[in-house]
């Protein structure tokens, strides 16, 4: 249990997907104009990550990893399908996003409309695929992967809500015209990244 909490804290704060690895930047910059939409997208990302991480773990462990097809018989014992992991992972993610889209459309049409094109674009949010790939690379167990997925989602949620709040306020400041909007958002994110680096020394 201790171990799972450690993985969670580490992925949400110390190795925050957005502010330490700078993954998931596109939707992070594009949807962070108001806190409300950022909040909705953050929740959707938490949900998608929480489901896709364990599903992809199972897929990798029982179908793709070298020797995992041994249950089919002798001749399959040495089959290594890891080169298919990109295609397999992205297919799982795309179908999960489709599911989330249908759920949100049914229960909260207002949120559905405000997220617009960015809901299907969660599929191509690098934070989601990145979580699955990091999980394989770091050889987490099933429980650790679930915790890692949830932690990464919470990390993304915190980061996007924080920058949305800053961007709502900065609209009233005297930023030079060419730097307004996108430019200043980049620089704020850089500063937030530096701030998050101070957490890196923490051993958990």
């Amino acid at each position: 249990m201790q171990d799972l909490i450690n993985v969670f804290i580490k992925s949400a704060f110390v190795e925050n997907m957005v502010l330490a690895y700078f993954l998931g930047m596109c939707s992070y910059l594009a949807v962070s104009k108001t806190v409300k939409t950022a909040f909705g997208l953050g929740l959707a990302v938490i949900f998608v990550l929480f489901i896709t991480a364990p599903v992809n773990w199972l897929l990798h462990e029982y179908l793709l990893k070298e020797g995992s097809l041994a249950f089919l018989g002798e001749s399959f014992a040495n089959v290594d399908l890891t080169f298919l992991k990109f295609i397999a992972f992205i297919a799982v993610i795309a179908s999960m996003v489709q599911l989330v889209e249908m759920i949100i459309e049914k229960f909260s049409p207002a949120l559905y409309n405000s997220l617009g094109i960015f809901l299907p674009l969660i599929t191509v949010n690098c934070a989601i695929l990145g979580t699955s790939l990091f999980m394989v690379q770091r050889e987490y167990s099933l429980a650790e992967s679930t915790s890692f997925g949830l932690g990464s989602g919470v990390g993304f949620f915190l980061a996007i809500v924080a920058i949305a709040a800053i961007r709502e306020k900065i609209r009233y400041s005297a930023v030079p015209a060419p730097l307004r909007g996108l430019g200043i958002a980049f620089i704020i994110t850089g500063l937030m990244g530096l701030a998050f680096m101070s957490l890196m020394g923490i051993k958990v």
Partner: protein
Amino acid sequence: MSEVAEKEPLLSKKNRKLLSDPLDDNNPITVQVLGICSALAVTSQLKPSIIMAICVIFVISFANLIVASIRKIMPGRIRMIVQLIIIAALVTIVDIFLKAFAFDVSKELSVFIGLIITNCIVMGRLEAFAMGNKPWPAFLDGIGNGLGYGLILIIVGGLRELFGAGTLLGFPILNADEGSFLHGIGYQHNGIMATPAAAMFIIGILIWIQRARNQKLVDIS
């Protein structure tokens, strides 16, 4: 494709514009805001930036070509999944190729080659251009956007390596080592340039410069 060739020369003015526009006025990173993630993660040195740029140019141009060729027979409802499968297949080819011929680079780039799949630049150009155009212009659009992306990547990677480690492509230029080109000026490494946060600052400043030169890109809101 031969049909296109009969109507207009292969590099007509319109087609040249497809190649040159994304380099400045319609740059995928600084104007369209696509493909930021990898731009930040791999640019701590010049060499991985260049390799990444080449990989992305390959993937985006061929994905554009394939999707533009089958755009009429592809059912609209499943187009996202079809596009993703095409991109994923191309990325798998790149990944295996790098593992075979440049293993240390492939190790250095780790998951970021895989993340080309979710690089919004590829998906974004497929949706915005390849779905509505003929294969040859779509191919050029892919190369143009890949080059525009690579240009930013190389600027950021070069600046970060030069000021972060004092080297370029591994050759000592600015640092204090004996035999480095400018070792006399006593430059000390700037640790911030080695962190991804520096990439954010550099791209932010590039956007500033570009928009100051080109007022019509300024974001009023």
